[in-house]
């Protein structure tokens, strides 16, 4: 997995490529928490090139969402492929995040 961080207005965009799995989730978590510490509040994780997220990856997303909310911020997700979209629906995790089809849609009214 690789991820790049960019900023658009006050939104921090984290673009994830590759798999988000047990072996690399910590990296993502640490970096997002660092950004949260340094003042960022609005986060968008964009999964444009992510094929697969395992359950521990999901765990990190849930944990991050909670920590961001505690600081008065918000975490949105975008660009989940069909498989991932189904996964979020089947596990009802889609009720915990705002999930947008595209990055542009996610940024609307953020």
């Amino acid at each position, binding site marked *: 997995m690789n991820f790049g961080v960019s900023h658009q207005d006050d939104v921090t965009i984290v673009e994830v490529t590759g798999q988000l799995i047990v072996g690399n989730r910590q990296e993502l978590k640490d970096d997002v928490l660092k950004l949260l510490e340094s003042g960022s509040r609005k986060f968008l994780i964009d999964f444009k090139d992510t094929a697969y997220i395992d359950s521990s990856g*999901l765990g990190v997303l849930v*944990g991050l969402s909670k920590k961001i909310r505690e600081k008065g911020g918000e975490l949105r997700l975008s660009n989940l492929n069909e498989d991932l979209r189904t996964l979020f629906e089947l*596990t009802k995790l889609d*009720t915990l995040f705002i999930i947008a089809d595209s990055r542009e849609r996610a940024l609307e009214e953020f």
Partner: protein
Amino acid sequence: MPGREEGRRSALVVSQRPEMVAELTEAVGGLGLAPRVISTLDHLEAHADARPWLVITDLALDPGDAEWASLAQLFPRSTLWAVMGAGDCDVDAVITAFRHGCLDCLTPPVTREVLSEKLASIGRLPGAKPGELDRYMSNEIRLELPSDLSVIEHAIKLLAERCRDYRSYGQRALVNLRIAVSEALSNAILYGNRGDRSKKVRIRANVDAWAIKVQVSDEGSGFDPRRVPDPTSDGAIEEPGGRGLFLLRQLADDVTFSEVGSSVTLTLKSDWEEPVVREPEGPLGGEAELLVDLMDRIRASSGADLHLWTENVDGLLQHVAPLDRKTEADPSSLHWLRTPGIRYAVQAQPPGDEEAERWAEFARDLLDEAFAYESRLADSRRDLAERQEEIELLHNITETLGAVTRLEDATSQILKGVVRVTGAERASLWIYDPSSEDLVLAASHGPARLATERVSVSSGVSVSALAFRENRTVRLEDVGDLPEGLEERLGPTPEPWVAVPVSYTSPGGATRTVGVLNVIGRRSGSVISDVGETRLLMTLARQIGSAVENLRLFEEILSREKLIGELNLAYDLQMKLLPDLSEFTEVADVAARCVPARPVGGDFYQLFKLSDGKIGAMLGDVTSHGFSASLIMALSMSVMGIYARETTSPGDLLRALHHALIQKLESTEMFMTLFYGVIDPARERLFYANAGHAHAFRLHGTAAPERLLATSPPLGIAEYGGYGEALIQWAPGDVLCLFTDGLTNPSLKIAEAAVLEAVDRHRHDPADEIVAAMFEARSRSGEPAPDDQTAFVLRA
């Protein structure tokens, strides 16, 4: 049995000679230890409660292998010493004693000063670590705890730790203790006190080498244990009073209830075994071989004519090394080793030669250090082996191998010797860390000048890095030899500085540089010649190299073995937690398979026979694998076991589970998907709650598999308290098919379709054939990501 010397550390004196007893009690009393005297080695077990700090045994009692083994087993944390009378000399008795961990043999006069000195030399003085010792003094534990399930883990940990003071508690005893006490405590909390946090649960436990007795009391009104039926008998299964009492009776060696039933006392026996007598070592003990080998090396590198002597049984001097050259014994020229119990001496030839004498002194010091190091290593090895036997199942995985001899300890001893002998001002040892390509400071002696503890091997301004890179001895006195950056840093007239590469030659012959030894500065008046000094340093560097490498390998092996042992145990236990499906054949055709990705995992299933012929079926998947997941799994199983028969609504059951686990799940950032369904064949319906579990299906007739959608997100997301439920029709012969994402990842849709296709094809076959077909379909649909794989199929 004599009373326990409350609050005072004690010493056990085993002797029947009045004058010996008087001398010893006075000496130990002077150290502030309460003496306790016994006159025989028979029935030592009567003194298991003593927990003495020191045990001194008179060799006149003629203790043999069995007696020493008993002493070592009964008093595992005590310092064991022997004592002999002024005229006695029985070397065999002393050897027997030492073989069983006796550290020293005292001879009269035994005074407070002698004891104090000896204790100081082995680093054990009364009062060294009060916390640990005070704990050790008491056999009894009393705890008063709030009625909260979270206290169980802590209480058990405490009890298990106390048991581990004795070597006689092995895996079996500790695992049984864990489960039995956990059952007893959850009974007291959930049933006795009905979960009322204002009420207390009291624990009183007594531990000795044979058994632990634990009394758990609650503030409830009690119950009649005789009225609790055997839960395996017909009709009893949904009786809430089943309450794990059955399990208690299976695991504990004795279970008794108080009159009113509000207190239960469990007795669990340790894995005590009669002492086994070990075979004695070869003629030349391990220690002698070590000394001879070291002497050979020092002789070779110093060029001095050094001899090793020992004192034999009759107190006569005996020449040990070198084998090819004998010399005359001259007691006045012998440099005796200071290590207690070791009667070896170094002699230099010709006597009186100043340089040779200095080498002899140095050799003696080095042998002392080496021997101390070896014995510490042996201690840790024993300690670790002991700990490995006493694996504490799921909780101590994160515990570090605290007792291991640290490289720092070993090397700082060596450096101390180097500084003393070479007359340098300070010395330091840097070890290469391949992952960062840095030299890391492992130990130093003398006033440090450098603030850093880490230097890159490519550094241009480091003497150590230079010596390491070029794998050669660097002497700063040889000016003109230095790279520019170094000279800039140290000035034109640097202080004396020798940096020697530390290398390790493997048994196969390959030599690797593993670090650098620095010897810096010079105290006034030191005279050792440069050539001799360099040779000495190179010898030392080789010694250190072996020590570094051996210790590293040793630690690696130990931690690996420990881990494997724990994992196997955890795997066995986890598999045992899963229900035995053969008990359900008369109510349903059911099969399941659980394949953890690592030795332990976070997938699990459970099945319950409920009232009115209802069947409860559960499948759970804890995110992440390994130990933390398996702990959650075990907790879930036990909470479900407690609530399933009492709760009619699956949603309520998930809520109960949520409250029991939320803290643990949140603190570990895990969550859990879980399906729980209650099939009611009489009313032809399935009532279920599904917390975020993706793969739950019902097969009816010839219709396509019907997905039983999640009724809530997964368990363990704090702000989510509500767990929905759903009710669907259930016709006799319908199939419930549950599996975890280990069977579908990484491609949910394609792999799931393949698994469902297999289920569909075998839908009229027995449940175990369906499960087999599901795993086969999984293996055909490509390389799975590593995850626990579980399938559960039930036809009713």
